[in-house]
């Protein structure tokens, strides 16, 4: 049995999945002031009377770090950045305790200017005096040579609770994003550590000795222990959980648009032959652009509870939510109320919905039914426009080789999978408005928790080799090796695979589940004075997001379909 648990903004969903079905599911309100409490309450709901040894594992997706970042509830953290020449590092400031220090590494990883130990020692005393315990250290091009970050860390010594190096978090280039990523990971560390401890201790108290995994923004899992090192990876795992929950029902042959229609927002993602599309650089959250590996998701401010009003004679839906629909006691009319007026939903106070819609109808000069239809269509159209914009954005991403440009691969989804609260109603309308095949994800109410439960471990390794300098380096893996001039891209890929395998197993993956693939494999001949002097090799390998291998049986029987035949509940 597997437990999947997704802490959302308003509800926490949890499922207990057996060999062939959802054994239990529950929804408890999210208590934002104490997330652990609701995690615990939810776990309690589904594990009651279940022998602990029958639970293989639990996968949690939490909004803890996301909320901490959006609400700015982060620990006082110092950033030490070593920019060398280039853009003014002051422009990249993330916090009050932000210090620009000397030292410079160039694009090939050569030391141009050493760091100044005296400067760092002085800084270290100052930070200690101010009671700062969390420090992020970031150098420009540290992923090509982490020497300076490590030297600075060594001078800082053991006198800080946590010293985090930029080069360990991602192998991608972008000094500003490295600074933001390091800052966020360091600044949410304490709050995450509190959560981590509470989970561990409670499980122990309850005698539940089950491995806990945490869902990441890229739709993969990592062990609870591994998450303590990079808690920032857990941001935006909520949208990722929903996308993963839709995976088994997506087409293997086509591209799929996933719409998670929530109360306030609709989150969108793209699946290509059942594999979610990743953001090429990293996600954005709360104004921070990061290197955190994540699914390519796009969010628009339209959902079932979006506020509906009339502005200058025009209908305006969202962004923003004043509360639930009026049918459920909310203060302002919403698209959900429109559904009540149309008689599509009736488990609430339809009269309240009508009362809410009346002024809208009057302002628009329409009948109540007309305006309800209008509101509903408008919301659907906004979602479709948002989707079109996301697809255009993905397709306009520049490429850097003649071959790629001429091939001109374009994402063109043929089907839409809808999940989230008002999914069935929206699916019906979306199908009428477009040429897409529109399906509702079965069990859409808990698809997010199912997605968390079934997600498998993911990971990425970046390797950089320069045979002229005689080095191969995978900074995220603390890997550095001297190489000879015969080292080539095949050696580099083999080495990167080896590193990836070790990393995944350390993070709790099962070796047989590892489906590794190459994301980037480029080799440039380096020519100096008309002679080839070496090879510059860049490799990126990954384990892509997907379902644990048992998923086929679970998904098939859970939703009563044979594995060969996909069975979405079609709403036309």
């Amino acid at each position, binding site marked *: 049995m597997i437990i999947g648990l997704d802490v959302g903004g308003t509800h926490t969903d949890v499922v207990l999945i057996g060999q062939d079905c959802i054994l239990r599911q529950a929804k408890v309100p999210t208590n934002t002031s104490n997330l652990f409490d609701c995690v615990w309450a939810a776990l309690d709901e589904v594990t009651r009377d279940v022998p602990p040894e029958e639970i293989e594992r639990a996968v949690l997706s939490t909004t803890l770090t996301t909320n901490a970042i959006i609400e700015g509830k982060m620990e006082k953290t110092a950033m030490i950045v070593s920019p060398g020449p*280039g853009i003014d590092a002051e422009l990249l400031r993330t916090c009050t305790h932000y210090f620009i220090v000397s030292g410079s590494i160039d694009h090939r990883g050569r030391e141009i200017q050493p760091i100044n130990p005296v400067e760092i020692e002085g800084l270290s005393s100052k930070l200690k005096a101010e009671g700062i315990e969390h420090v992020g250290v970031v150098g420009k091009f540290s992923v090509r040579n982490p020497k300076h970050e490590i030297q600075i860390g060594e001078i800082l010594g053991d006198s800080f609770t946590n010293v985090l190096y930029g080069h360990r978090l991602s192998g991608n280039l972008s000094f500003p994003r490295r600074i933001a990523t390091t800052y966020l990971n360091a600044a949410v560390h304490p709050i995450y550590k509190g959560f981590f401890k509470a989970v561990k201790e409670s499980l122990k108290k309850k005698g539940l000795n089950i491995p806990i995994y945490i869902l990441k923004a890229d739709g993969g899992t990592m062990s609870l222990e591994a998450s303590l090192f990079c808690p920032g990876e857990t941001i935006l795992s909520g949208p990722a959980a929903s996308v993963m929950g839709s995976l088994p029902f997506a087409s293997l042959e086509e591209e799929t648009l996933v719409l998670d229609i929530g109360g306030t927002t609709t989150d969108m993602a793209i699946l290509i032959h059942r594999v979610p599309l990743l953001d090429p650089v990293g996600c954005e959250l709360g104004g921070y652009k990061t290197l955190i590996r994540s699914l390519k998701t796009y969010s628009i401010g339209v959902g079932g509870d979006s506020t509906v009003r009339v502005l200058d004679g025009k209908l305006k839906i969202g962004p923003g939510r004043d509360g639930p629909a009026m049918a459920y006691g909310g203060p302002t009319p919403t698209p959900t109320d429109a559904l009540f007026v149309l008689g599509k939903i009736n488990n609430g106070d339809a009269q309240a919905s009508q009362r809410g819609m009346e002024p809208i109808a009057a302002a628009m000069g329409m009948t109540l039914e007309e305006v309800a239809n209008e509101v509903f269509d408008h919301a659907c159209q906004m979602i479709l426009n948002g989707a079109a914009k996301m697809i255009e954005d993905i397709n306009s991403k*520049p490429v850097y080789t003649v071959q790629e440009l001429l091939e001109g691969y374009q994402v063109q989804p043929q089907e839409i999978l809808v999940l989230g609260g008002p999914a069935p109603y929206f699916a019906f309308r979306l199908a009428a408005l477009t040429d897409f095949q529109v399906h509702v994800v079965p069990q859409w109410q808990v698809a997010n928790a199912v997605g968390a439960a079934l997600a498998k471990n993911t990971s990425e390794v970046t390797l950089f080799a320069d045979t002229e300098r005689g080095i191969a380096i995978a900074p995220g893996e603390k890997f550095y090796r001297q190489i000879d001039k015969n080292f080539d891209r095949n050696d580099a890929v083999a080495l990167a695979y080896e590193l990836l395998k070790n990393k995944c197993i350390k993070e709790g993956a099962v070796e047989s589940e590892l489906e590794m693939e190459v994301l980037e494999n480029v080799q440039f001949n380096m020519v100096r004075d008309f002679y080839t002097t070496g090879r510059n090799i860049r490799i990126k390998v990954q384990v892509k997001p997907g379902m644990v291998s048992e998923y086929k049986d679970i998904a098939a029987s859970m939703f009563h379909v044979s594995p060969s035949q996909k069975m979405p509940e079609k709403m036309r």
Partner: protein
Amino acid sequence: MLSVKTKTGLVFFPAFDWAISATHPEREERLLYTQDQVFEEGLLDIDGIIEYKPDLATIQDVRRVHFCVPDEWSVLTESHLISAGGAKTIGMQVLEKNVERGFALVRPPGHHAMRVVHGARGFCNINIEAIMVEYLREAYKVDRVAIVDTDCHHGDGTQDIYWHDPDTLFISLHQDGRTLYPGTGFGYEMGGPSAAGTTINIPLPPQTSEEGFLYTLDNAILPIINDFKPDLIVNSAGQDNHYTDPITNMNFSAQGYAELTRRLKPHIAVLEGGYSIETALPYINVGIIMALAGMDFSKVREPDYRPQRIRQTADTAEQVKRVVADVMDCWEKGPRLRERNRAEKKSHKRERAVFYDTDNILETQMEEQRTCRDCSGVLSIDSETDRGHHVLAIHIPRKACNECRELGYQLYDGANLRSYHQIFLQDRTHDQYLVRRN
């Protein structure tokens, strides 16, 4: 989030899978370190710096500018169409006012490609700036254009294409032709009879440094542009004036290039040459992007930048001053010369040899230009190569009068096809391109 004052478009196309040959300077690796630097600095994440995917230029775009012999696909590859297309994309974004300025960081380059193309010269097959400019003239009715070529080599291709066009001000700033390929670009090369003075050559002595370049900019280039009043300023932003460039002898720097860009304020910059791929290009390109976007670039510098060490001598400064004085003389003489030549209304011939160093082809040309009171006049080029290709090319300029247009067609229809492999007509008044062949 970081944002910039001036909205700036960027096409970055390093053509990581294309090279002239494995160890040629124009090879896959050329923009690799520039990409690393631009990515690491995070420039593409800045609000107001927008990266675009390059469009492919079309054969029709090429035919507005060139006579390709025997045909387009024999002298170009897809990568040339992408490179020209990248420039075109930036041009369109600027004229659509989606951005204020733009930079096409593309390869292969194009400024040595002349109007007639038999092959590659100076690593160039087709002229990417000219293809962009003529497209913009056709699509957006842009009229007066200034092209400032800051590549270290004389932009002889662009000069050739605009030699007879009084509406295009071509200024080339380069290392003295007596000391560097292609060996042209002297002050007295100041345009054809109908366009005398709108070609400006500024040959600078070797070892000219920041002071010399900026002196030239302030005392010649900017005043001339100010007089000319262009609708559009294009910068052929070659980067081989750098003190570390392996095939030139100048002492310019990333700071200097950025400052030049800040003062010149080009609407569109297009990368040309520059082969110091590790120690110059990453820093110059970052500097140019930041300067275009109106950012503070004072901290952008090469690892080994020591301004004192590359400073030009007093002697060099003197030479630069003299060159600038000569240039301003030419600029003043131009209008009178043009008037006189056009009033004469006669045929001007020039015979010359063009060597295609990259493809090892020798071409001999007899060019004939007929001056006209009402327009810049019809151009005909009789071109023959040592490979045995012999063609006649007729060019009717964009603003040709009816009489000259008629004349162009008469020359095209009347030529004896037995003497040529092909006869071409480029009618810019109707955006037409015709070919007669055996």
